[in-house]
């Protein structure tokens, strides 16, 4: 076995080069160069690839999004409902279709004959898709036949459209209860004070109440593309 021992290398010169044949020197050089090669190949490879067509390449902010009201105003009266004399009251915005030109219904219906027969509507209201519960559901189950400006509960009580939730609550009892407690539906305002509720019909079309699919806002930017702008900037500004 060949191995240089301490006594073989008696010298006082501290600066003496390592013997050229030393396995150590060769190994170290090989090791260093291999590790450098590996490191640089890793770096050049870059971070994980993102498949073509996958979302999350671009950073969107709320300013680029149209059709969503981020600065929504509270209903007037919320402050009074928090501190004023009306404290504890829940506010509700006017029911849908209030200002659509349909209301008041009696403007037309007062002069029309009553036809309780279920049928396909052709002259008016042909845009209404009726898809709510049992197939024999018909308009006059809810709308009061004698005065179309109000709704009619099962017990015969007449209510305005502002109170339509009472009508919905006849069947949807648990959800009605949740809604009154603020567990169902959207509310705005003060968690410890005045707040506004929405009526069932604000979110659910009463004639076809199932929720419609909506367009999602853009996905977050992937980590691979987070630095895009900043890196461009760094390249523009020559460092040192």
């Amino acid at each position: 076995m060949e191995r240089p021992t301490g006594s073989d290398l008696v010298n006082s010169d501290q600066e003496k080069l390592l013997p050229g044949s030393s396995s150590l020197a060769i190994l170290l050089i090989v090791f260093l160069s291999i590790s450098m090669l590996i490191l640089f190949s890793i770096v050049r490879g870059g971070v994980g690839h993102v498949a073509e067509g996958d979302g999350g390449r671009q950073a969107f902010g709320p300013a680029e999004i149209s059709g969503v009201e981020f600065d929504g105003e509270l209903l007037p009266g919320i402050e009074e409902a928090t501190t004023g004399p009306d404290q504890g009251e829940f506010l509700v915005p006017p029911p849908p279709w209030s200002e659509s030109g349909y209301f008041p219904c009696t403007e037309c219906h007062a002069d029309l004959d009553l036809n309780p027969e279920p049928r396909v509507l052709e002259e008016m209201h042909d845009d209404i898709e009726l898809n709510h519960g049992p197939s024999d559901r018909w308009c006059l189950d809810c709308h009061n036949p004698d005065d179309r400006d109000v709704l009619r509960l099962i017990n015969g009580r007449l209510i305005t459209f502002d109170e339509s939730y009472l009508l919905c609550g006849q069947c949807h009892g648990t959800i009605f209860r949740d809604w009154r407690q603020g567990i169902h539906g959207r509310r705005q305002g003060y968690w410890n004070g005045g707040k506004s509720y929405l009526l069932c019909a604000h979110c659910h079309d009463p004639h076809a109440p199932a929720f419609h699919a909506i367009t999602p806002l853009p996905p977050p930017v992937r980590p691979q593309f987070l630095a895009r702008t900043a890196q461009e900037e760094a390249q523009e500004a020559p460092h040192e």
Partner: protein
Amino acid sequence: MIKDITSFTTGSARIAFKGGPTFYAWIGFLGIVCLWGLAAWWNQFQHGLITTNMRDQVSWAFYIGNFTFLVGVAAAAVMLVIPAYIYNWKPIKEIAIFGELLAVSAIVMSMLFVFVDVGRPDRVWQLMPIIGTPNLPSSLLGWDVMVLNGYLVLNLIIVVHLLYTGFHKRPYNRKFVVPLLLFSIPAAVGIHTVTAFVYAGTAARPFWNSAILAPRFLASAFCSGPAILLILFQILQRTTHIKIKDEAIWKIAELMAYAMFLNLFLFGAEIFREYYSNTHHLIHTQYLYSGVHGHDALVPYAWASLICSVAAFLLFLIPATRTHLVTLNLGCVLIFAGVYIEKGMALVIPGMTPDTLGEFYEYVPTLNEVRIGAGIFAIGFLVFTLLCKMAIPILRDPDSGKAA
């Protein structure tokens, strides 16, 4: 007294910077790498950590991996004093001093790695007691900073005392040095344990949240630290008067084989638990060793590390290869590579991939990160070279104290 100190300072500085062309070439090379890294750090300082590839998904990576590895080196370098005592290796003072010097340099490097990793380097003073607000006892990083600084100071005191007395050709104060030296051994275990606890205490990252992480850290450190020292001893044997007995080197290699066995055993225990129980937590290990859903950036390195470690274990286990210079050195290099990959890449990154919400972001360092890392290693080597340079001629004098 003051005259003694000034003569020591100027004298050792003169020794440290006096050398032949090879020495200056080496220093110059390190200096250039330093500057290269410093330029990269300046770039990072100006633009923020966005110059790295770390993101919210993988928020610790290359820097912290290197930090962990170097804490291990620092710990193991001093732990080598234990067998030196037990087996009564003759140049024990030399082994101890070079261990301490390596520890000092490694601690400096590891602290620099933490320094470059934080987002607000202007606020690191807040970690210090009294002037800052260290969140003790609950923060393990807070503890880690404390013990690392303490360990650095401890080692510096020992080294400076030995060198100072050596320089003035006085015997060193055994009553002072030996207790400190003995204390530095549990302290070495301590720093690496605390560093392991930084990871092991993180319940959110199941890959790290393992009771045997600290023992694994110690076992693997006991391989990598001595590997560096073995190579250093051979260089010293050839280039200086310092004689380190071959038997001592072989004995260290044998101990490294045991440490590597322990390391591999603990690793196997971890692997068994992961794969046999086959819970959701397995995904990190799978990402490391086989890749998940085509995410396999780390797979070659994980296997390379394992192969290096096993090969080195076999080389050090068999007496014939352990005592043969070529295979011995090959083993050292393999161990170093194996442990470096294991700590630097295969610990931190898979712990964070996939992230806590299941997202895969395959991290690899940027050139800027690698440059900063290289710069820090250059600083560490520079410190170590200069410290060794000071120590060697002082140790040369046979009158400068008798070792235990």
